């Protein structure tokens, strides 16, 4: 395998891992969203690297997949941000564990 491909492969995996780690340990929704986007970036990088991007024009099918994926990611992010705004208007915290507590209290409403 081409050394560049190896580098990007590694980068892809690590970025995905960092995103996952951040998603799981963070309590801030906005940061969790960033992490999800990081993970997406990792996957896209993986797709193109595996598609042979390091050796020449990569396989067009993964490219199309990534392009679609980028648009889907921005759609999801946009919706999530709209939901976040709404969330903020209702509550006073963007932390999910605050929700857990609030839910425990309002559980029986």
């Amino acid at each position: 395998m081409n050394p560049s491909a190896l580098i990007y492969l590694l980068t892809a995996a690590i970025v995905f891992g960092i995103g996952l780690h951040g998603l799981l340990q963070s309590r801030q929704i906005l940061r969790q969203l960033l992490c999800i986007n990081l993970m997406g970036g990792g996957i896209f990088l993986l797709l193109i690297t595996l598609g042979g991007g390091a050796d020449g024009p990569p396989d067009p099918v993964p490219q199309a997949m990534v392009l679609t994926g980028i648009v889907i990611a921005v759609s999801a992010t946009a919706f999530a941000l709209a939901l976040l705004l709404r969330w903020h208007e209702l509550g006073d915290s963007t932390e999910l564990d605050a929700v857990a507590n609030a839910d425990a209290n309002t559980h029986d409403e």
Partner: protein
Amino acid sequence: MTNEALIGLIFLPLLGACATVLPGRFATYLGILSGLAPLPLLLVAVTLSVAQNGPGFLELGGWAAPLGIRLFVDPLAVLMLWMVAIIGGLAAIHAWCDFPPASPSGQRFWPLWLLLTSAMNALFLSADLFNLYVCLELITLTAIPLIALTGSKTAVRAAMRYLLLALLASLLYLLGVALLYNATGTLDLYLMRDALAAAPPAAVVATLALISLGLLLKGAVFPLHVWLPKAHASAPGPVSAVLSALVVKTAIYLLYRVWLWSVPATVAAEQALTLLAILGAGALLYGGVLALLQQRLKLVIAYSTVAQLGYLLLILPMASSGAWPVAWQGGTYQLLSHGLAKAAMFLAAANILHALGSDRLSDLQRLDQRQPLSLFALAVAGVSIMGLPPSGGFLAKWLLLDAAFRSGQWWLLAVLVAGSLLAAAYVFRILAASLRRDDPTEADPVADTKAIPNVQTACAVLLALLALAAGFAAAPMIEFIGPGAPGAWSRP
């Protein structure tokens, strides 16, 4: 003719959604009606064709796989499509009262609803892994706004949690798909079996584990179900119905497709399938116990969904045994009857919540006088959920038990039995709460009950009666479903 019908199933609701976005009352009505009403008719054509000619493919754009995207229709897909048409249709009628198309709330509701319908139809028909990813995202991005539509604190919070986990799930799935494409050079579900058989099994299993993890998260399979109860319980009634009856099933459906259709037997070994079944068993027991502990009707029903999804995974370890056809029939029948019953329960619960202003179990007393028909729907659907005769749930449970016996999987038998006892416990808990009358001297309780439009009551009752009727009309449907996945026709 079939091809046109298949295209119609996806594109009519899609264009209907477009029409509802346009200004004007006429466009809205036109969009809703043309998007939903013709679906059953189209399905009749599809069903007849599948019954006559067997499963078939439709190449979109005329590009053959692996280059292009194919649609695949087989009895399982037809079953799911019928569920979308019937459950989605009745839920839509129910929603018509709460979200009148011309009102601002209707303007928000209907385009999303139609897109969701289209997305589910697309998902059940798609034969392409990446296309399925797009479908999954479309479902996520239409279902979650529908949950948050009420704008209540609980709903928005539940929606947010659901969204984050659903996006994570999609990414895990996509990661698996990326690796699979690299290993097989195709995204077609039904073309990758041979290539996968040649690849190193351990790596394939790891890849499938990623895909399955994503799907289990989307399907709210124990222990990844945390998002489900509140999301389903805080959504508007018809949305809850469709979420529980259809949306979570999409993930289970894909699990079936991946593990039973596209994976070679060397990889889909007993251990992997047994692991999935163990999760199903956990769901059945854990969901049942938690349903028993809830204080609110909709939460009980939502946890019951967590539990009932377990049944669908329990059949997997029997895939290689002689009992498979029976197990498969039981699984698919469970899919159907749970869908009908759960949708009926959620619609009835929505009516009750609306009429009483509360769905706390302690507020339900004398429900038999205040909301007799909703209680009837709840009870009849509950019978199916418990798996007691006469109902679709009973026949499904019978088949599952039968299969467990034939394959000699005794632990499955024990789990099934425990699961149905738990189901009986939580359903009867609801019924007991609604027959109670703590204070016999209390003034007429009917007085402070709001009236529910007859149509809404009728939708719940009709779905419950369908769940009941499923207990009688099983034979033709089960014949149609056939022997299940790894049969001769799974790889035409």
